[in-house]
């Protein structure tokens, strides 16, 4: 029982991170209809910027995160301007390949700037808390709480503000959005900015319990793809629920099935779900 609760907590931690990354991915998908493989690189850059701010400039953790969020947001926007925007009218496979090109480039760039080795991100929240035989570290609790707060804010933004709704509108009908006076460029940039922000937040939150290195985006992005597929591409609640499903299935699966095969569990889970519901859990209507 104790183990189960501990593992649920572990699943919640990691699921929060997944959900944040998947949210950015799903938003961009909605606007662009492209699975943006380069999103993993933005995540990585988010991690490195926070790290650099703390280590080289001595900024406190939270300030470093803010800088990182802005930088990652801008890199993400830059990506949209330079690559995805010009490609918006071509095949989506092309954008996908371009995204792979970006990923390769950004990883090489990170390797050039920060070196290929593993780096450790410090955190002021190293304390360990024991409650009723369960072990938490403050950082982990922080991840969960911060992720949930960010998600609520994002939801309110998207649902309740006109600017936020313009993102959803554009994802449903581009031209329709233009005709009501939505500036497509602004919305696309905004979306990429938010996606970059979310990735940077996720990376900055999770890096203290893991490591920062050029390939760190790979780990997360593949799972984020599984998640947005699980939840239905472009679906926001789907990304959140999917994130936690994968988080839990990994921690619970590792405990009760097999730790060695827990990655397969997530993928097999997806295969099963899509076999039953070919358009994901949150798919809407027929066709």
């Amino acid at each position: 029982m104790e183990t189960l609760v501990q593992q649920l907590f572990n699943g919640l931690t990691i699921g929060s991170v997944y959900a944040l990354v998947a949210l950015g991915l799903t938003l961009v998908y909605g606007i662009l209809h492209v699975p943006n493989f380069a999103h993993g690189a933005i995540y990585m850059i988010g991690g490195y910027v926070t790290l650099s701010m703390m280590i080289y400039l001595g900024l406190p953790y939270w300030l470093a995160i803010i800088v990182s969020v802005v930088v990652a947001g801008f890199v993400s926007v830059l990506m949209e301007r330079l690559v995805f925007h010009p490609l918006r009218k071509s095949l989506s496979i092309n954008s996908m390949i371009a995204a792979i090109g970006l990923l390769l480039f950004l990883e090489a760039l990170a390797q050039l700037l920060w070196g290929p080795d593993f780096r450790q991100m410090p955190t002021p929240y190293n304390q360990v808390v024991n409650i009723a035989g369960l072990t938490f570290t403050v950082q982990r609790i922080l991840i969960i709480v911060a992720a949930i707060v960010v998600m609520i804010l994002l939801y309110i933004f998207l649902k309740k503000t006109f600017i936020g709704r313009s993102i959803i509108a554009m994802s449903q009908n581009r031209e329709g959005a233009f005709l009501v006076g939505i500036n497509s460029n602004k919305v696309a940039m905004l979306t990429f900015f938010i996606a970059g922000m979310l990735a940077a937040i996720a990376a900055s939150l999770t890096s203290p319990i893991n490591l920062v290195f050029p390939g760190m985006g790979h780990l997360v992005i593949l799972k984020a793809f599984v998640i947005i597929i699980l939840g239905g591409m472009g679906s926001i609640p789907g990304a959140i629920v999917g994130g936690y499903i994968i988080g839990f299935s990994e921690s619970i699966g590792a405990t009760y099935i097999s730790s060695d095969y827990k990655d397969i569990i997530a993928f097999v889970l997806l295969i099963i779900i899509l076999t039953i519901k070919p358009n994901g859990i949150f798919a809407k209507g027929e066709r």
Partner: protein
Amino acid sequence: MLELRNVTVKYGHYAAVNQVNIQVFKGEIAVLLGSNGAGKSTLFRTISGLMKPARGEIIFEGEQISGKSPERVVEDGIVQCAEDRKLFPQMSVQENLMMGAYIHRKNKKIIKESLEEVYNLFPILYSKRNEAAGSLSGGQQQMVAIGRALMAKPKLMLLDEPSIGLAPLIVEKMFESIQQINREGMTILLAEQNAYAALNIADKGYVFENGNIVVQGTSKELFSNEEVRKAYIGA
């Protein structure tokens, strides 16, 4: 109010709209008649800024608007209700309408009023306000599209074939609504194939063929024009 001078629009080398001159005055209903592929929608798309004219000028209230981006055109007061509706299918009817007021997003009061006006105009939309727009039938979607355009409180509304695929009863109502909107002070440029109904409510019309204006005049003139009668009114 709106003036098109020698406007030419091309798809590649093909001129879908060729040297077109049009003038719409405040408070008018002007109608563009023309068969399929005549270039009506292309012209509308160009006015709305979705396409750039290859040549010519579009002047709205004394200001050059050709080459402006779509949202700037909307801000200037021209709103289009497009041919294939271009709704946000997974948003509810009400959310669609609200998005129509995007340029008035800072003014909650205007939005609320406009919303009521639209629901008064199309009561059925009120009963469907929480349903996803994509699940409505064609006619209902058309109402949402018009309603959405109204929400922007435009000075000039471009209506691209609002009657397409609608039942006769609804078409009749639709034209009544258009007339009513016009009476309340809105200038309307309408593209139609249903020439009879359109000319009935319009002040003047232009007949399009292969991207060129072949006939123009007041509704009366067009009604009495033998060729127009034969080709577009069918009686």
